[in-house]
């Protein structure tokens, strides 16, 4: 049955190929289009989403009216007849229902906005887990971080433009958060909204931010970001022949250029497909903004959900104490400040500063162009997973009403559960991830020292049964033994020999503690000696054939030794 289908498929392919020679074409593109690893395309997906956003955004700008002047709807959409609304909302309806292709372009714009942020975040995770942020790429990490923040800003300002009930509620929450800032909050809010919320200025102002300021900044920073990628050259996954001193890959031009152009159309096609099949942000359902109604299922776009979730998670009282204080006639609302400003602030600060935090712990001053396998840096990988879990829990809490009605759970139970989970799950997932990573490292050691299990059992003359292990080839060994083996920092004594306290001791001590947290527990890579010993150990029961094989293996090893050696020296020089 399977064979029949296969031969039928092959027949069809052959038929098409003979008439179009598409086979060669596919081969050509398949070979040249994509680089050695799909995860290097994540940044590119973000880039293409941004280009789609620019193109579709220009179209929308031609029809959107950024004004809060009140009009009565007279267009074709039945459930809006005669309804009072702002020009901004009316023009959004007009774009959707009267401009040819307008609705499709709106949906393309919004779907690619969601894609943009999702791609940025996965790209950021790729860079994080592979350690691509290490010297000399820390600055580019920071630029990338700014791009992420700007992407959130772009999304939020755009989401608010149609002036519908849903986004209006979102703005209302932001207004509340701003007003929660002690002393200056109300002033900022008045300044931003041009008076009491909502006023008539906010839409034109958001418009300027959304179509001019934020995209211009993003464009400039993307330019800088890519320039630095170009300057530093791309990092590479570990493997034979790849060192911190070279780059193995395809030439940028013309192969990379052609490949990138092709990939843009793939992304564009998928976005267009999704946008033409699935509704997004149906503002005609939500209706024009009016401060009084709030509907169930009121949520921001997914990338802002974590703030909403933090707000929903925060109790108003803690152990019987109110979290709203009144000091000298000023109200301080910790129940707003903590979830909406302090926690996101800390979370984002950790992301922004992470390359330096790790560099302190590692004390590594060398350039790192070969990526880490996540398992080889268990603590970093654990931290990353814990932060993702933290974020995801907040997103779930931000969707708690949807989760409750979907799974028929109690809204209150979900919140109470998550109030505990937010403290328990991230540390737990850190610990589990770290264990899994170290387990994988041990398994790698096993493999290097004892080879693959071949499944063949051999009986020796003395009656002993052993399983034959086939040794790993050079590439496989290389992958598993070449990683920076960092050890906790050693620091100079607190007092020098004259008993005077050393300057900077406290800072060093902090770095040492951090370093112990990272590297106290570790799995050492297999050393050359261990490897040799294991090889000889396996050579029992010598035969003529065995000897010949051993000689061959030795020859291959000689090459490897050199590299192994060099690698170690390079590593040592870095320190």
């Amino acid at each position, binding site marked *: 049955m399977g064979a029949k289908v296969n031969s039928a498929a092959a027949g069809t392919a052959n038929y098409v190929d003979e008439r179009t020679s598409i086979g060669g074409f596919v081969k050509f593109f398949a070979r040249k289009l994509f680089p050695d690893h799909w995860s290097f395309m994540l940044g590119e997906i973000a880039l293409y989403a941004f280009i789609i956003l620019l193109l579709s955004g220009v179209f929308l700008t031609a029809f959107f009216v950024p004004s809060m002047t009140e009009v009565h709807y007279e267009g074709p959409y039945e459930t*809006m007849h005669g309804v009072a609304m702002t020009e901004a909302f009316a023009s959004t309806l007009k774009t959707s229902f009267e401009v040819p292709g307008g609705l499709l372009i709106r949906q393309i714009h919004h779907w690619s906005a969601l894609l943009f942020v999702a791609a940025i975040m996965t790209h950021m995770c790729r860079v994080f887990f592979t350690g691509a942020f290490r010297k000399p790429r820390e600055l580019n990490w920071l630029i990338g971080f700014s791009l992420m923040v700007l992407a959130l800003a772009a999304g939020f300002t755009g989401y608010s433009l149609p002036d519908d009930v849903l986004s209006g509620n979102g703005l209302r929450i932001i207004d509340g958060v701003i007003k929660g800032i002690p002393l200056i909050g109300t002033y900022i809010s008045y300044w931003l909204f041009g008076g009491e919320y909502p006023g008539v200025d906010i839409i034109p102002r958001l418009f300027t931010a959304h179509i001019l300021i934020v995209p211009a900044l993003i464009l400039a920073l993307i330019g800088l970001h890519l320039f630095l990628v170009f300057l530093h050259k791309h990092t590479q996954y570990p493997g034979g022949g790849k060192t911190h001193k070279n780059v193995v890959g395809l030439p940028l031009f013309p192969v990379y250029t052609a490949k990138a152009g092709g990939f843009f159309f*793939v992304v564009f096609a998928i976005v267009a497909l999704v946008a033409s099949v699935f509704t997004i942000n149906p503002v005609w*359902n939500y209706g024009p903004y009016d401060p009084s109604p709030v509907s169930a*299922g009121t*949520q921001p776009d997914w990338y802002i959900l974590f703030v909403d979730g933090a707000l929903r998670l925060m109790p108003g009282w803690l152990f019987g104490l109110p979290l709203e204080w009144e000091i000298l006639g000023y109200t301080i609302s910790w129940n707003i400040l903590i979830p909406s400003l302090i926690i996101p602030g800390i979370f984002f600060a950790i992301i922004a500063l992470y390359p330096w935090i790790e560099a302190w712990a590692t004390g590594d001053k060398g350039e790192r162009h070969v990526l880490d396998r996540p398992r080889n840096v268990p603590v970093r990988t654990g931290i990353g997973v814990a932060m993702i879990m933290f974020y995801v829990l907040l997103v779930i809490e931000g969707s708690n*009403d949807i989760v409750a*009605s979907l799974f028929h759970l109690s809204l209150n139970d979900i919140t109470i559960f998550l109030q505990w989970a937010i403290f328990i799950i991230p540390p737990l997932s850190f610990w589990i991830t770290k264990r899994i990573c170290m387990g994988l490292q041990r398994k790698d050691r096993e493999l290097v020292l004892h080879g693959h299990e071949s499944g063949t059992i051999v009986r020796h003359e003395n009656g002993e049964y052993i399983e034959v292990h086939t040794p790993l080839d050079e590439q496989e060994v290389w992958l598993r033994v070449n990683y920076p083996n960092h050890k906790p920092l050693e620091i100079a004594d607190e007092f020098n020999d004259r008993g005077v306290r050393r300057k900077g001791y406290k800072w060093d001590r902090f770095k040492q503690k951090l370093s112990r947290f990272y590297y106290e527990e570790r799995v050492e890579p297999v050393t050359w000696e261990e490897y040799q010993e294991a090889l000889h150990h396996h050579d029992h029961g010598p035969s003529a054939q065995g000897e010949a094989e051993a000689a061959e293996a030795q020859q291959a090893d000689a090459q490897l030794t050199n590299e192994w050696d060099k690698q170690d020296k390079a590593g040592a020089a870095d320190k």
Partner: protein
Amino acid sequence: MHALAKKRHHKAAPLLLVVVLLALITAIGAFSATSATATSEASADDIADGERLFAANCASCHGLDAEGQDGVAPSLVGVGAAAVDFQVGTGRMPMQASGPQAPAKPVQFTQEEINQLAGWVASLGAGPAIPTAEQVDPALGDAANGMEVFRTNCAMCHGSIGGGGALTQGKFAPSLLETTPTHLYEAMLTGPQSMPVFNDANVTPEHKRDVIAYIDAQRAGSPGGLSLGAIGPVSEGLWAWLLLLGLIIASTVWVGARSS
């Protein structure tokens, strides 16, 4: 403050109960005479059948005389035919498992039996009647006005177009997209369980019909394509990750695998 209110409540409760019971008994007496006019469609035969059905299916909870039992089920005196038609017609009654909220389930009676039950319950005390076909005809309503009425009165629980939403403690406002116009009307009129009553002074009969027209308009589907459950940005976000980013990454991996 809280504790005090609780205490006061406790002391007054028995007294209140007696007053309410007395009032109920007088009400039943007063209305049983006029019940024939209140339920003009139900014949005496129907009412008798209704009583039998009730005794067999409902009395275990609501009591033989439908006056309810403390802690089991409420009195049905004066809830009207509309309440029975809604509760039995959506399958909520007879209730089965106890939970945060009696859920809608497959209907267990024919419309004729429901009418008989409704007729009997209506004969116990005047209450809202089952609306006429004209009262609930979406074609006669103004969907745009319905949108505004819905947004101010219903969307906070049922979502922006009636896709449903969660309330506290496991209760939820169900999706309205499958509900019949008559049941929509009756729900507004009788306010089942956690839902408030929207009497005719609150939301006029015309406005109720406008709401029905609005909900009906939603059934035509979204102009933008498939609506992903009409529950807003959360489902959109999920789809952006799973479908959009998922497809794109899958295509890079696929082509990458083909080339090697």
